[in-house]
């Protein structure tokens, strides 16, 4: 069968982009393209840069002539089509040639609109000498050539193109005046105030601006000498550039009997109305009454057209584009979307203006959704506003956040603005591009993408960014991850519901939870550790411990290292030790040739590189309690020397730290619990950035801060309470930790949990006992404390067969270098 013939009239950005989309879908067409200009296809937007001298002509070509050859496209450059015979399905060119088609695409774009000003044309010579339109590469070349030899230019039109032309011309001659018929610059995109702000910024660049200026005549006999305005003023000039807007190139379509209004009328499949085999795309097309003069809608249209014409998706439909633009206009940042000003009585309008800096922002909100925004001079919030506008997202209660990055977390990076090779996950080295391609390959849940790419699986700091990138890449088609609200991924229940069900059914082992609460009774390896922690917290001594539910660290009470060996950290309460203890640690390290002895951040001593099978012997030789440097548990209490020695100390921080560690050692929870007690507000023990930090203040009082962190996340804790005695600190600590254990999600550290619940709410429960559960919390914590057994006593006999049998290396493994 003969290949269907596809003919495209127009070799501009729309025509070429549409062909690219069709080729990508392998339409099987024999493609012929007709271009009016004698070139391959170039980026018309970049002509401003060519004029400004920042881009070389060669840099603006999108597809050079070899691209057409490589893709088997027959290209006729410099060939204008004059007529379409719809009945015979043939297009006729100026040179008399006839080309038959099976499918036809019209992508003729638009041309500069030249107002009928007396003197703008010279009979028989086209434009008056010195008058230029600003539309094509040839226009641009001619303008540059002419401008270089002249002094003064006037640009007619204060829209985007006119501003760009004015700025560009400054590179070639000394005086540039911009005349604009309307009351303010860029009046289709900006409101009056924004336009005025833009005008001031442009004037600072040395461009003279005249608004409300109707040009009535171009002066000069042989060449241009000036222009006359309606108010009688004359502006002397020798170059005139017309940038007064564009009009769709639809003459051929109209002459051939196709429906044309402001553009060629198309349906949602980009087919010309009433025509089965003729499409129109780009600036020449009119869709649902709109014509577009920007590229973004064109990309959307090209995709739909390609989907439809190739049969890849016969139901593909273009629904119009929500226009949002961000541009650097004549050196000034400008962004605009939606409506310019309030249109209804109950529309909310926010305006910020800082004329000295040339900054103006206005935002229009309707029914809690963003319906319009204008930014001049500062477009940093563009990406955020754009998403809110495009997707109708709920807006922050603090409306000022729409305009400014207020304190708190650093400004959100917008996925759209990140380069593809930007590293998102710094732990596992995952780039934005890798995340996007995973989404494009069909993975549309955040957790799915994280599993596939490992992004966000290290310290977790980048998870919110990963989530935003996935959402952006999926274009709002992110599938809700149902597991996001569950306590663990394998049991479909949030924590409160799960705890209720566990109590109701009396489930005391991890396997019984799977068997009872998961449809089909399916086990889930990734859920076991979280369930084990929860059940142990809930049932204490009654918990039916199944060793396989434990992570390896909890099976052998040590922290696994990269080479499969373990680290051993003996307890050193409050970071206080003795010569005898140090001697013993030194002897053990020597006896067992421990490869590294290191001080930890939690004021203890770490013996690193211990093989699993040696653990019981080392514990026996140390004969010290476990420091729990391996569990999702109470870890350490860091202290300063406090009032005993420090000349600034106002409270005995070491004694309190030791007492806290003595009582709450090894208590397990949803995440690690790191504490500190510091003897004065100088905070040497870093108590402000701990899960719970205690600060002695003058007058014998103690402040308790909760929810602090200084790891992957840095957060100063919130003040929970100020109390009068160490005993109260100990009680409130226990109560807070128990409330956290019962309510936080698995692996949710206090720095996330405290702000989620809110410090006021936590204070109500823990300090003021507003819910009347303080006694229950205290009792539950008491029971956990009473049930505590030092795991390092579990060493005479393995609890399970081969508990300490080495898993590696039986043959060879890379070793951590011995220092």
């Amino acid at each position, binding site marked *: 069968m003969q290949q269907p013939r596809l003919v495209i009239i127009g070799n501009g950005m729309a025509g070429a982009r549409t062909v690219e989309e069709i080729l990508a879908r392998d339409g099987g067409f024999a493609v012929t393209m007709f271009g009016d200009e004698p070139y391959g296809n170039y980026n018309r937007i970049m002509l401003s840069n060519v004029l400004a001298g920042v881009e070389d002509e060669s840099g603006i070509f999108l597809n050079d002539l070899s691209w057409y050859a490589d893709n088997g496209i027959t290209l006729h450059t410099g060939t204008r089509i004059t007529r379409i015979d719809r009945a015979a399905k043939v297009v006729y060119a100026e040179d008399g040639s006839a080309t038959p088609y099976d499918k036809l695409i019209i992508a003729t774009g638009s041309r500069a609109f030249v107002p009928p000003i007396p003197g703008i044309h010279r009979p028989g010579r086209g434009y008056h000498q010195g008058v230029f339109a600003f539309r094509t590469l040839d226009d641009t070349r001619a303008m540059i050539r002419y401008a270089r030899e002249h002094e003064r230019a006037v640009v007619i039109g204060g829209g985007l193109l006119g501003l760009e032309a004015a700025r560009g011309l400054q590179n070639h001659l000394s005086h540039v005046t911009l005349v604009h018929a309307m009351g303010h610059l860029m009046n289709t995109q900006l409101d009056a105030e924004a336009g005025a702000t833009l005008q001031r910024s442009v004037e600072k660049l040395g461009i003279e601006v005249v608004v409300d200026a109707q040009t009535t005549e171009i002066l000069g006999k042989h060449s241009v000498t000036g222009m006359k305005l309606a108010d009688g003023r004359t502006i002397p000039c020798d170059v005139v550039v017309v940038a007064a807007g564009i009009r769709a190139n639809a003459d051929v379509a109209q002459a051939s009997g196709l429906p044309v209004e402001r553009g060629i009328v198309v349906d949602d499949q980009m087919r010309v109305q009433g025509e089965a085999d003729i499409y129109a795309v780009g600036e020449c097309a009119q869709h649902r009454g709109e014509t577009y003069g920007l590229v973004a809608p064109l990309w959307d249209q090209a995709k739909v057209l390609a989907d439809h014409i190739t049969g890849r998706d016969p139901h593909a439909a273009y629904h119009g584009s929500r226009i949002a633009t961000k541009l650097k206009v004549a050196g000034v940042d400008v962004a605009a979307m939606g409506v310019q000003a309030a249109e209804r009585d109950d529309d909310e309008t926010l305006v910020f203006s800082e004329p000295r800096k040339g900054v103006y922002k206005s935002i229009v909100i309707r029914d809690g959704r963003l319906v319009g925004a204008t930014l001049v001079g500062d477009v940093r919030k563009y990406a955020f506003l754009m998403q809110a506008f495009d997707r109708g997202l709920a807006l922050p209660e603090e409306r000022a956040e729409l305009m400014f990055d207020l304190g708190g977390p650093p400004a959100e990076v917008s996925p759209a603005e990140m380069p593809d090779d930007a590293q998102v996950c710094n732990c596992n080295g995952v780039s934005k591009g890798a995340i996007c391609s995973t989404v494009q390959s069909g993975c549309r849940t955040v957790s799915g993408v994280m599993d596939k790419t490992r992004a966000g699986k290290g310290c977790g700091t980048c998870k919110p960014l990963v989530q935003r990138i996935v959402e952006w890449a999926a274009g709002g088609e992110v599938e809700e991850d149902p597991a996001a609200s569950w306590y663990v991924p394998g049991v479909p229940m949030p924590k409160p519901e799960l705890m209720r069900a566990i109590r109701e059914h009396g489930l005391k082992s991890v396997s019984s939870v799977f068997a009872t609460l998961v449809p089909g009774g399916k086990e889930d390896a990734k859920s076991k550790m979280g369930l084990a922690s929860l059940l142990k917290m809930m049932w204490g001594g009654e918990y039916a411990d199944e060793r396989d539910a434990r992570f390896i660290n909890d099976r052998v009470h040590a922290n696994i290292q*990269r080479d499969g060996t373990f680290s051993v950290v003996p307890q050193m309460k409050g970071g206080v030790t003795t010569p005898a203890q140090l001697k013993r640690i030194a002897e053990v390290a020597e006896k067992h040739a421990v490869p590294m002895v290191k001080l930890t951040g939690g004021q203890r001593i770490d013996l690193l590189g211990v093989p699993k099978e040696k653990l019981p012997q080392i514990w026996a030789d140390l004969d010290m309690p476990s420091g729990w440097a391996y569990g999702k548990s109470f870890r350490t209490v860091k202290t300063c020397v406090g009032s005993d020695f420090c000349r600034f100390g106002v409270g005995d921080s070491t004694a309190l730290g030791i007492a806290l560690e003595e009582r709450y050692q090894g208590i397990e929870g949803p995440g690690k619990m790191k504490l500190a007690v510091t003897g004065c507000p100088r905070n040497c023990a870093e108590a402000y950035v701990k899960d719970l930090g205690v600060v002695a203040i003058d007058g014998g009082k103690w402040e308790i801060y909760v929810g602090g962190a200084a790891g992957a996340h840095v957060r100063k804790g919130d003040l929970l309470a100020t109390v009068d005695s160490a005993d109260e600190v100990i009680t409130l600590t226990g109560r807070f930790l128990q409330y956290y254990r019962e309510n936080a999600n698995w692996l949710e550290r206090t720095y996330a949990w405290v702000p989620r619940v809110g410090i006021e709410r936590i204070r109500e429960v823990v300090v003021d006992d507003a819910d009347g559960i303080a006694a229950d919390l205290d009792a539950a914590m008491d029971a956990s404390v009473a049930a505590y057994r030092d795991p390092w006593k579990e060493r005479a006999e393995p609890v399970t067969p081969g508990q300490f049998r080495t898993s590696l290396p039986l043959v060879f*493994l890379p070793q951590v270098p011995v220092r």
Partner: protein
Amino acid sequence: MSIRLGSVHDIPRGEGRTYAVAGEMVAVFRLRDGSVRAVSAVCPHKGGPLADGQIDDEVVICPLHLTAFDLTTGCARGDLPPLKVYPVAVDADDMLVIPSEVLL
């Protein structure tokens, strides 16, 4: 011919142990339903000891960076090469056996 690794009772239910078999390191797991699976013992990501990983009926999770591998196919849930899968069985004496022809 097949090679005996040891008693199945050496492996607690739901856990794994490593065996050196004819110069290869094999991680054998005993599922909670009593069935056994065997895969190569070293994680292809960063050399983690898979026998120390947590398992369910389908996967083992490397203890170092939490990569999941299918215990039946050896395939990684993620972008990593698969594990070698060994046909392991329990014989009449409750001994773990691997056919010797699958070993190098």
